[in-house]
């Protein structure tokens, strides 16, 4: 009988998005509580993530127990960013020269970041390929 209860609760965990979402919120809550208790300079969500990642790697929980819940959050993550962007309502000053300056900064900065990152990774990949070829010889 207890085994059957265990099995059916596991089935609910694997099928229900809501229960999985609850589990993920639980990890966040734990991480947040830990950050508050110890006074870590890291957000609670990051600690919660490390906690969940650790449990997944240690096979404490299976990926099926959180996949549906995580997909809900990750699939529509842009929705959760909208309220923060609405902060623009209190910053009418960005409509003028200041806004143009910031846009210029972001444009130039992003070009540098993208080009720099891609060229660095390409260089590392080519160096590794060459040293790999040397070893083979």
């Amino acid at each position, binding site marked *: 009988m207890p085994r059957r209860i265990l099995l059916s609760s596991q089935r609910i965990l694997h099928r229900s998005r809501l229960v999985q979402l609850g589990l*993920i*919120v639980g*990890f*966040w809550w734990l991480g947040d509580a830990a950050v508050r208790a110890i006074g870590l300079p890291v*957000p609670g*969500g*990051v600690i*919660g*993530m*490390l*906690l*969940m*990642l650790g449990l*997944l*790697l240690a096979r404490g929980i299976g990926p099926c127990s959180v*996949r549906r*819940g*995580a997909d809900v*959050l*990750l699939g*529509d*993550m*842009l*929705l*959760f*960013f*909208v*309220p*923060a*962007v*609405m*902060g*623009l*309502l*209190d*910053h009418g000053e*960005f409509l003028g020269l200041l806004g143009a*300056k*910031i846009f210029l*900064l*972001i*444009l*130039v*900065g*992003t*070009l*540098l*970041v*993208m*080009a720099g*990152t*891609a*060229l*660095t*990774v*390409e260089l*590392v*990949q*080519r160096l*590794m390929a060459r040293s790999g070829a040397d070893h083979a010889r």
Partner: protein
Amino acid sequence: MPVEAKILFWPAATVAAYLLCRALYRRRPGWQTSPLLTTPVVLILLAVALHASYGDYLLGSHWLMAMVGPLTVAFALPIYDQRAVIRRHWLPLAVGVAVGSLIAVASGYALARALDLAPELRQSLLPRSVTMPFAMNVSGHVGGLPELTAVFVMITGVVGAALGDLLLKLLPLRSSMARGALFGMGAHGAGVAKAREVGAEEGSVAGLVMILAGLANVAVAPALIMTLG
């Protein structure tokens, strides 16, 4: 509008506007139709028409914003799924994330100085290349304003997704790792969506780089800000 109505209206309007904008994006994908750009535009027009302030908006919508915490936790799953890729390509991934983050912060700082922006704005601009949940956390820690950072992150994503195609044509990139890192580091979420269109491997590398960059920035931000002042 009475307070009770505001509490119910704004989250409902946010979800409705998001669903509409998402439908538009699915029909015509492109940086111009990214829901991250179109949804706030619709809602800001609505708020201006109704004379609503950010405070009014947040009354009932703060729980939507709070979901950024559990969303950060959910990123554990894609990292877990990609553990084989991380193990195999840890060196280019680590170097790419480190160099990219350094360029992002250094260029933000130098350009903000050159353009004579206020320190508060400068700090808010530093984590703009990092995915939203991490960026907002970093911003709060280094003395920026998280909601300003959210706006800058949004603009970075839209700009980066638009620039990415151009850069792919100009730069001599042979490896899919480099193409994925370009999008993941430069344009976070919007870039990952773009990278998925380029190729499956580009997409997963972009997603991975985005998450690793977020983690790296959260880890080093306090030290960095102390040295930059």
